[in-house]
């Protein structure tokens, strides 16, 4: 029958896409996400980090943490703008790489820059606001990384998980502020990152306002009458975006 045949083709195409994402695209993106670290390692070995290699390492890792954070926040807008739902499947990986680079950044600061001088680290946290703000960003990122597994999403339930993960906004804001505060006088680069973050957050604000304007009817899930009482199906986490 025509109908079934068409159905089969679609199904096969979907299965093919899934295979491609899982077996090809994801590993490729994963390796690409490791490239900055590999490059940094190469430079360190080749003596290419300049006169103050420790500073260079701390800064490079911090920059990549922020970049991955922004990339992960760009997924939802990009998915909708480009009508590419498949992008959603890379969001968690990018977010976790942001956390990975942030952890290495903090580790490099504690282990290389301060060489585990905890008194000095503590002094820095209390006395230097930009360090305290950076620590704030890191602390906020922690629960997000911990709850990034499928099991955790299940355990928390889609809506609660989603609400928890809105913490990524303050985390990114704190990271951007951390960078702005760190710089002495030339604010161009940190403000560029802050500007990109503002765009990504602004886009969400506009989208939300539009949703609200369209009225509650459009927000309700099919088959329900009261908007507040519904719990979105598990898959909604992946499609609705945060």
């Amino acid at each position, binding site marked *: 029958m025509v109908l079934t045949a068409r159905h089969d083709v679609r199904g096969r195409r979907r299965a093919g896409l899934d295979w491609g994402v899982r077996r090809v695209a994801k590993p490729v993106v994963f390796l690409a996400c490791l490239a900055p670290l590999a490059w940094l390692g190469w430079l360190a070995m080749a003596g290419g980090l300049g006169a103050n290699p420790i500073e260079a390492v701390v800064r490079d890792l911090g920059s990549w943490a922020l970049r991955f954070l922004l990339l992960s926040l760009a997924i939802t807008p990009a998915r909708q703008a480009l009508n590419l739902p498949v992008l959603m499947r890379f969001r968690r990986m990018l977010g976790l790489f942001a956390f990975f680079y942030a952890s290495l950044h903090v580790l490099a600061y504690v282990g290389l820059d301060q060489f585990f001088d905890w008194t000095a680290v503590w002094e820095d946290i209390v006395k230097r606001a*930009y360090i305290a703000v950076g620590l704030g960003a890191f602390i906020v990122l922690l629960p997000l990384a911990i709850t990034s597994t499928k099991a955790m999403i299940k355990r928390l339930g889609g809506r609660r998980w989603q609400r928890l993960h809105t913490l990524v906004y303050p985390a990114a804001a704190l990271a951007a502020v951390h960078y702005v505060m760190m710089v*002495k006088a030339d604010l161009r680069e940190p403000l560029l990152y802050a500007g990109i973050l503002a765009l990504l957050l602004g886009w969400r604000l506009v989208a939300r306002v539009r949703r609200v304007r369209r009225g509650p009817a459009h927000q309700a899930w099919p088959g329900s009458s009261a908007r507040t009482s519904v719990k979105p199906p598990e898959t909604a986490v992946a499609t609705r975006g945060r």
Partner: protein
Amino acid sequence: MLIRSRKPTDPLPSAITPRKHYLDRRRFMVATAAAAATTGTVGAVGVAVPKARARPAQRFDPFTLSPLSTDESPTDYDAVTTYNNFYELGTDKGDPARNADKLKTRPWAVVVDGLVQRPATIAIEDLLTRFDLEERIYRLRCVEAWSMVIPWVGFPLAALLDRVEPLGHARFVAFETLLDPDRLPGQRRPILEWPYVEGLRLDEAHHPLTILAVGLYGDVLPGQNGAPVRLVVPWKYGFKSIKSIVRISLTEHMPPTSWNRSAPDEYGFYANVNPTVDHPRWSQRRERRIGEFFRRDTLMFNGYADEVAHLYAGMDLATWY
């Protein structure tokens, strides 16, 4: 580079190290560099010989090595000339070296005016030939909590001041960097108020440690290090040592200084290296000597306390930071 474990608690190492030792070491360094340059190898010897390719010609040879020098190992020439804060040539540490060719240093003259008996405009050629040049190996401590040891070539600022004869009511010396966005492209953007200005109290300016530097590692000063003439005040944070000077004015009142204007709560007029006075951005208790892994303790007045502490007797250095 060679990493020394000895602490730099020696404001005047020359007091215990015979002067001859310096000269011998200097001759040895020159000889090694020459040998390395001809054979194309790096001098892997136990003294601070920077990479041979980086070692410039000894253009200022011969000159005397000042007994005010430290005997600590100088920081690699490469590091001294590629890790610079000179916002007029870019705000990244590597920018000044990349953009240094824009800074044409001829023609160049330094105006000395204000409260002086004999104001003068001194051409750079005269500045380079009319004063007795010495090598001064000084510690340099940046407010960003890193430090270097740099062999400058220069002469005491006092020698210049003596020639212009400051008037009795002159109490400060104001310095000014060239203002020319073509030669100093960083001035196209208002990161700081241009031109960069700095100042010293007259007694600080007269202090024998305070020099005008025209050279580095025996060669003329590279653009990124403040060519063709800069101030070096080794007991103060690096930003006091203003680069590419075109004007020196004697004044009665405390002159404005660039970083103080930009962030008065962070940078004071005095800016003496002081491990006990904290800075909102960097702990000043310790510093990273470029080329070393572990931080080392920062010394009061950058290790020059014996020479300069008396200048600030009775002053509260936490107030006058």
